[in-house]
């Protein structure tokens, strides 16, 4: 099959879908092998990112999705009735802490922020950006929090590795390795490198 033909097929399928499609799903639908698909996706992605296109091909939460370009948001918004998710500065700050430090307890969040954060964590849970990821094996067995798949979707991240890197501190202790190993699944869908 011609690569241009496959590319068009991929575009058609992605256009018709209202959810992100994983590599596996695309392979199954298009009946092609992984290698061909990767080339097609890559080319399509590059084409979409050129000027003069209205959509971009984003890799989110382990799948591919066509989304409108950020610069055309004002026009696209005219058609939308739903209001976008508003996050206060405190909420974004808390979300960032959870994203980088997960799994993290409320006490740890509050230690970092220096203020009570219970209400904000609750809001983030309600917005489905954060989830309860179990209990920490420590006195009082406090709940630990982690980001959700929804978080990746909303911020257009494929995996947690795509988070912007934080400025390094002089201390070496502050990498964002999980403080405790728990029964966690990090939506660590295999990152497709190509």
């Amino acid at each position: 099959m011609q690569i241009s033909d496959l590319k068009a097929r991929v575009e058609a399928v992605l256009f018709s879908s209202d959810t992100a499609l994983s590599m596996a799903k695309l392979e199954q639908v298009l009946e092609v092998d992984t290698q061909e698909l990767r080339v097609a996706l890559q080319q399509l992605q590059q084409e979409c990112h050129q000027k003069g296109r209205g959509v971009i091909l984003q890799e989110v939460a382990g799948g591919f999705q066509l989304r409108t370009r950020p610069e055309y948001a004002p026009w696209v918004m005219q058609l939308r009735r739903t209001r976008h998710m508003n996050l206060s500065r405190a909420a974004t700050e808390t979300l960032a802490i959870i994203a980088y430090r997960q799994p993290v307890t409320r006490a740890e969040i509050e230690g970092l922020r220096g203020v009570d954060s219970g209400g904000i964590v609750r809001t983030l849970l309600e917005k489905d950006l954060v989830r309860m990821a179990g209990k920490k094996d420590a006195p009082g067995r406090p709940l630990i929090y982690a980001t959700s798949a929804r978080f990746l979707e909303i911020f257009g991240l494929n995996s947690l590795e795509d988070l912007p890197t934080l400025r390094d501190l002089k201390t070496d202790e502050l990498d964002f390795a999980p403080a405790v190993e728990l029964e966690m699944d990090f939506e660590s869908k295999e990152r497709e490198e190509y």
Partner: protein
Amino acid sequence: MAYEVKLDQFEGPLDLLLHLVHKNEMDIQDIRIATITAQYLEHLDMMKARNMDVASEFLVMAATLLHLKSRTLLPPSRVEMEDGDGQDPEEELKARLLEYQRYKEGAQQLEEYPRLFRDVFPRPPLEPEAAELAAKALDAQINIGLYDLVRALDNVLRPKPKPAVHRVEGGAISITQGVHMLLQHLHGRERVSFQRCFSATTSRLEVVVQFMALLELARLQLLELQQHTRNGMIYLYPAQSLRSGSYTDIEHMIDVEAYANF
């Protein structure tokens, strides 16, 4: 409703402290405690002056700063050196500030990321076909977290709002009531038009019952129905007893049993 005034929107003592450090163009590593402490306390006074609830966290930080400031004035105390965990409280504060700054920057970067439904938009969900829904339901992967369960339970426990249904009272009217309604129209009158005697009815049921009452009275020969012209107005001529209102035993005359279903 109380207004919540925020001075420059400080999220907490660390936020305020960081702001002061930047305002004074200091580096966190060479923070001048005396200057920062003075400005920090000034800011707290400002908050109090505006009737703001100063969160306890702000006060704890004020105490910490004052403690640090006092330390600079005194020779290092032996007790502290032996007692503490070896951590210099000033270094500790610096470390906290640095770390806080780091996450704040992370949050700013996150804020600038193209966000779904704010900057970028996917295709909205289409109306699914019934067959599609069924297929989805069959191989749906249900991914429920603890919080989803808690939320579901919460929804069940929450007192249910009263259903916004307008209840129409099906006013059960007996044939006897129908008769009385009719009698009110007939009282003291020589004749009443068919239409007029239904003028007070408010529902279909009332019309029906009153019509049956009319037939019943006619059957009891207390009422005469006359139509003077073809397709013309029908008139009710009540008997003398009805006109004068001397019909006390009328209820016994009605064959209530026959109307039991109404």
